[in-house]
């Protein structure tokens, strides 16, 4: 059996079962009928309503991988893949469910105390609690050790001061997993993560940032002005673990970025192949021009290569053997190809490609951030570059 979005007849290497197929078709129905049709409205609002988070929770589409005791379904990683693929396929950029399910929830599950898990995870799975990650600062992008937000010990907890920016879900967030320095002198070892309730005094949100694309997804600055949090807010209860905690999670985050980018490529190709078949110019179909066929043949091949690589990465991840450098290759290459292919596809749309009524135009503007987020691709090359050496066989 081939993957439903495979670019070739190659059989999938992933262990999909019938249950996955059922899950996929219900996810598809949800995204196609309840999420995608609202995108334009949410883009105007630059926000998604809480109701759609609740709805996803009801249907089991939030945090399905959590154990049942924390509100999840104990699902495997392929469920996360399916959800991401189906959301992309429907054309819905927002809500950023994967941020909730695949980025934030694992922090709590992996590092949190039992109390922290009980407090937040069921609410995240139900959609009652919307979560975000507070890492990036105005003066520190990919450079985590350069953060300036501080958490100073008080009698019964911490006083947090600082500022974060580019925070996805920042406007909606009830919970922020916040990186702060508990020991300014200790470098990487001085960074700790906190579970911050956004109802806390001293917390405030800045503007909903205007972005080049991804308009339905809220992105905010966050401010912390002598915000007091209790000791129990420290993730895992031990100071100075923030940096390794963040680092450990990156492999999975890059893998999810790859899943999304490959799905974007699949969608761009599907849309464009349809377009060039329908559209005529100079008396023939646009597909009939050799330039069109070659351009799409190249894109389809890149997609096929990426499918094979992504599946291998997923298998390795599920087996616990996906390493940082390989995940960095996936993130770098998939996002570069996504941008290049979407750009080529836009060009094949001619003037319509620049008009936001056409999905390819939105995909172009939405997708540009992928070469930057989750660690800029220059960081990926740096990671790969550091591991060079030795023969490959």
């Amino acid at each position, binding site marked *: 059996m081939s993957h439903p979005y495979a670019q070739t007849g190659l059989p999938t290497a992933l262990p999909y079962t019938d249950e996955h197929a059922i899950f996929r078709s219900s996810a598809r129905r949800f995204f196609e009928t309840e999420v995608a049709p609202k995108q334009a409205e949410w883009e105007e609002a630059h926000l998604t309503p809480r109701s759609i988070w609740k709805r996803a929770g009801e249907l089991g589409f939030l945090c399905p991988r959590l154990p049942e005791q924390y509100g999840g379904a104990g699902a495997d990683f392929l469920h996360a893949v399916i959800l991401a693929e189906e959301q992309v396929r429907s054309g819905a950029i927002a809500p950023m469910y994967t941020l909730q399910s695949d980025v934030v929830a694992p922090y709590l599950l992996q590092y949190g105390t039992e109390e922290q898990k009980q407090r937040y995870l069921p609410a995240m799975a139900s959609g009652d609690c919307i979560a975000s990650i507070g890492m990036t600062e105005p003066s520190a992008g990919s450079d985590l050790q*350069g953060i300036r937000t501080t958490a100073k010990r008080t009698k019964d907890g911490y006083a947090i001061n600082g500022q974060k920016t580019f925070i996805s879900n920042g406007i909606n967030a009830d919970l922020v997993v916040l990186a702060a320095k508990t020991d300014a002198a200790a470098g990487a070892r001085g960074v700790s993560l906190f579970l911050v309730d956004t109802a806390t005094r001293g917390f405030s949100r800045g503007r909903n940032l205007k*972005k*080049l694309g991804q308009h339905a997804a809220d992105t905010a600055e966050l401010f912390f002005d002598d915000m007091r949090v209790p000791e129990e807010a420290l993730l895992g209860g031990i100071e100075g673990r923030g940096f390794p905690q963040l680092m450990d999670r990156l492999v999975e985050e890059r893998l999810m970025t790859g899943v999304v980018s490959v799905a974007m490529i699949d969608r761009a190709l599907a849309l464009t192949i349809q377009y060039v078949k329908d559209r005529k110019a100079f008396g023939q179909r646009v597909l009939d021009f050799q330039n069109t066929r070659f351009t799409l043949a190249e894109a389809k091949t890149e997609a096929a290569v990426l499918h094979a690589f992504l599946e291998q990465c997923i298998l390795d991840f599920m087996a616990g053997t996906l390493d940082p450098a390989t995940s960095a290759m996936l993130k770098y290459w998939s996002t570069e190809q996504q941008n290049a292919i979407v750009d080529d596809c836009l*060009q094949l749309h001619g*003037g319509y490609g*620049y*008009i936001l009524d056409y999905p390819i135009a939105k995909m*172009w503007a939405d997708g540009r951030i992928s070469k*930057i987020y989750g660690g800029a691709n*220059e960081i990926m090359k740096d990671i790969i570059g550091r591991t060079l050496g030795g023969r490959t066989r």
Partner: protein
Amino acid sequence: MIRSRHYTPAHEDFRAGVRRFMEKECAPYRDAWQAAGRTPPELWRKAGEAGLLCTKMSPEYGGGGGDLFHCLIVLEEQTRICFNELTFYLHSDIIAPYIELYGTEDQKRRYLPKMATGEFVAAIAMTEPGAGSDLQAIRTTARAVGNGYRLNGQKVFISNGQVGNLIVVAAKTDGGAGAKGISLFLLETEKAEGFTRGKNLKKIGCKAQDSSELFFDDVYLPPEALLGGVEGQGFPMLMRRLPEERLIMAMSAVANTEEAVTETVAYTSERKAFGQRLMDFQNTRFKLAEAKTKAVLGRVFLERCMDAFIEGKLDTTTAAMLKWWTTQRQNEVADECLQLHGGYGYMMEYDIARRYADSRLGRIAGGTNEIMKDIIGRTL
């Protein structure tokens, strides 16, 4: 560094005036006009008053009597404030010349002075839903009735389509004659019954530049609406204008490429990461060295083509080369420069984000770059 060799003190005075205008009358309203999706009529009147419109037009008709470099200066100065969607160049340097070069004396007297003052804002309507770069395939017709015409059809992607009140429309006066059957008409929108504007199209960038579909439902055109007074001249008129139009597109592309480099040099010289300035990373310096090289080559080629144009020697093929190369490089450089801005590059408050979004249009508009390559390929 190679520098432009063409500016006289008079040009520099003009530049200073344009810059003041851009900073005072445009920059403060940029965001508002982008949100509105259009520029207001007052802007055009003010630009006319300030001498920014129709700078090349003969003073006899109210123009500035300038040269191609006035057009370049306006584009450079609007580029500097990252306001690529101001369409003065379209009105002044692309459309007005049709009337000045091809119009009857009556048409010139009627329209040109008011175009110079901004009372008339012009648009040109060529592209149709089924005919992008393929002009001969247009379906809009102007059927002779009595001693006038009835215009029927539909246009798309028309810049100034919302704000324009004078539209140059390409239509078939003789459906069977192919290229020879196309004529151009001057349509004053206020009087035009049966003329409607579609919605203002939402674009990736260039958001203050309105872009519309236009519909013509049996619109009556008097005989004096026919540009030049002779039917069937539309195709050669359009063809003869293409080199200059592509030259103008390249001006914008080159100016944007330069500005993107300049902004990014400034940004990476200040911004730090991992304990050093971004500019101190070899990758940053190499990427900017590549970008700068493209900017400089584009500038030199542009100026050479401008020289040739002024001497009457710019051919269609060379203009096609200039258009695709400069718009392609503009887009590449904007992409690299955005990347060097990191997350900020994706935020619309940074000009590089706007430049990137704007730049994507250049490879499509004015004949896609594939059309340009086709033109060049035919001459091999």
